[in-house]
């Protein structure tokens, strides 16, 4: 292990526990997935210093690393290299050792009888989601090209969900790999309702927002109110491009969404005709706009959420607007937004944040975390009010997750 810039006084995790009879010290783990490997950063509840552990899988393209919240120790990493095919690595000891999945996510080798759908191959696993608290060992993964897979054994063997992957309707909405984003169309934002393991959501870039109430056996589409690029028909599902969906943990009938065409909120009241997304991004400053990739929700307050806008004009530079990066927070479910840029570069900063590269912890006063395309890791203390750099010079950051260790 070595230490990073903000870790000059880093203490060994768990040291406080040995000195007093106080309750076990909180141990936080930041999981940073990059284009060239994964890094872990350890801290305590104060989050003042961080100890770095890495690289893991140096040279591998790591799309996502997730801790299993049901045991607080198991990790999954979605990996490939520039040449080698995609796989999932698993660790049950916080990354001290890793084992490759016996059966990584893979589409069916032959289309169903009578199907004219072209066969597909997984390019990379993109979005890892632990299953419901009542289903230990269950995981979901969204892939590129778009596919949804499930594991019931802790990520060792993955099975495709035919209701999505082999559905002629979904395949029409997905289009081909060439119809997707430059680094491949993605199935992302796989969400499990904390009240019901059968209630699932996911988003497709592009291809809309979808939900299942029977554990993935059947799906319905949730795009009412979402806008599409001007000149196209919003009734055509393939034109919808949700970038990131989040569910409010303490009010699961509320969803937030960062979309290619704005920021949205959906409050569900149990009547399908009222499932209409509201574009809450219209209250963002006009010079900043409401385009971006990540969406972050408060761990307890469903009225509080964060975004990190990017430049979505003309050719879509996908940089901080004006080279002045900032998060924005709403504390009233999108009625108003406030800029949070204290400590971030004031000018000439042209990085951006990918959809999985911004998150929040669940401490009493939550901190935000973000990883930039230029390889910087930042903490936004006091709910993003004060930003401080944790690490620089990492490879391009794809995903940042934070978890409290068992």
């Amino acid at each position, binding site marked *: 292990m070595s230490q990073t810039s903000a870790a000059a006084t880093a203490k060994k995790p768990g040291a406080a526990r040995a000195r007093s009879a106080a309750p076990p010290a909180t141990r936080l783990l930041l999981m940073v997935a990059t284009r060239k490997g994964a890094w872990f950063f350890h801290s305590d509840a104060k989050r003042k210093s961080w100890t770095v552990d890495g690289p893991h899988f140096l040279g591998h393209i790591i799309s996502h690393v997730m801790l299993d919240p049901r045991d607080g120790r198991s990790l999954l990493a979605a990996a490939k290299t*520039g*040449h*080698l*095919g995609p796989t999932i690595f698993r660790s049950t000891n916080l990354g001290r050792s890793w084992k*490759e999945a016996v059966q990584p996510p893979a589409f069916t*080798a032959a289309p169903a009888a009578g199907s004219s759908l072209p066969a597909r*191959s*997984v390019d990379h696993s993109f979005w890892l989601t632990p299953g419901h608290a009542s289903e230990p060992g269950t995981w979901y993964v969204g892939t590129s090209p778009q596919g949804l897979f499930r594991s019931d054994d802790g990520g060792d063997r993955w099975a495709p969900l035919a209701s999505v992957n082999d559905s002629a309707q979904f395949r029409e909405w997905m289009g081909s790999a060439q119809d997707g984003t430059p680094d491949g169309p993605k199935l992302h934002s796989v969400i499990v309702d904390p009240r019901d393991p059968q209630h699932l959501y996911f988003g497709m870039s592009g291809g809309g927002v979808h939900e299942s109430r029977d554990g993935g056996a059947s799906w319905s589409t949730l795009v009412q109110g979402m806008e599409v690029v001007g000149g196209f028909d919003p009734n055509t599902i393939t034109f919808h491009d949700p970038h990131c969906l989040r569910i409010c943990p303490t009010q699961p009938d509320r969803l937030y969404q960062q979309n290619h065409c704005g920021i949205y909120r959906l409050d569900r009241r149990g009547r399908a005709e009222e499932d209409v997304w509201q574009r809450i991004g219209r209250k963002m400053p006009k010079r900043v706009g409401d385009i971006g990739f990540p969406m972050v929700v408060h761990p307890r307050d469903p009225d509080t959420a964060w975004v990190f806008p990017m430049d979505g004009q003309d050719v879509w530079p996908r940089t901080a607007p004006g080279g002045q990066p900032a998060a924005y927070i709403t504390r009233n479910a999108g009625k108003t937004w406030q800029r949070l840029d204290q400590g971030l570069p004031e000018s000439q900063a042209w990085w951006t944040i990918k959809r999985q590269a911004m998150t929040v912890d669940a401490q009493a006063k939550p901190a935000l975390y973000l990883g930039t395309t230029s390889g910087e890791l930042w903490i936004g203390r006091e709910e993003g009010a004060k930003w401080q750099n944790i690490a620089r010079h990492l490879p391009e950051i794809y995903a940042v997750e934070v978890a409290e260790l068992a």
Partner: protein
Amino acid sequence: MRVMVPAALRSYTRELQVEAEGETLDALFTDLDRRYPGLRFRVVDEQGQLRANMRIFVNGLGVRDMQHGLAADDFVAVVLALSGG
């Protein structure tokens, strides 16, 4: 037959040259996967196609057809296409 594997696959084989069997390239990779579990999927996708940026030479001749026939005394080299970044 002798198979030369790239360093990127050494975590599976532990050696840069190994022995394996098969009457076609596809069968050869099935045998390699039996000997070194997980190796095949890193090189050959679920549709039986050689992955992009992977190259295979049989006795020095570039081959992409996984049904290409092999003889016991062939020398098969698995190579990563040269790339940057």
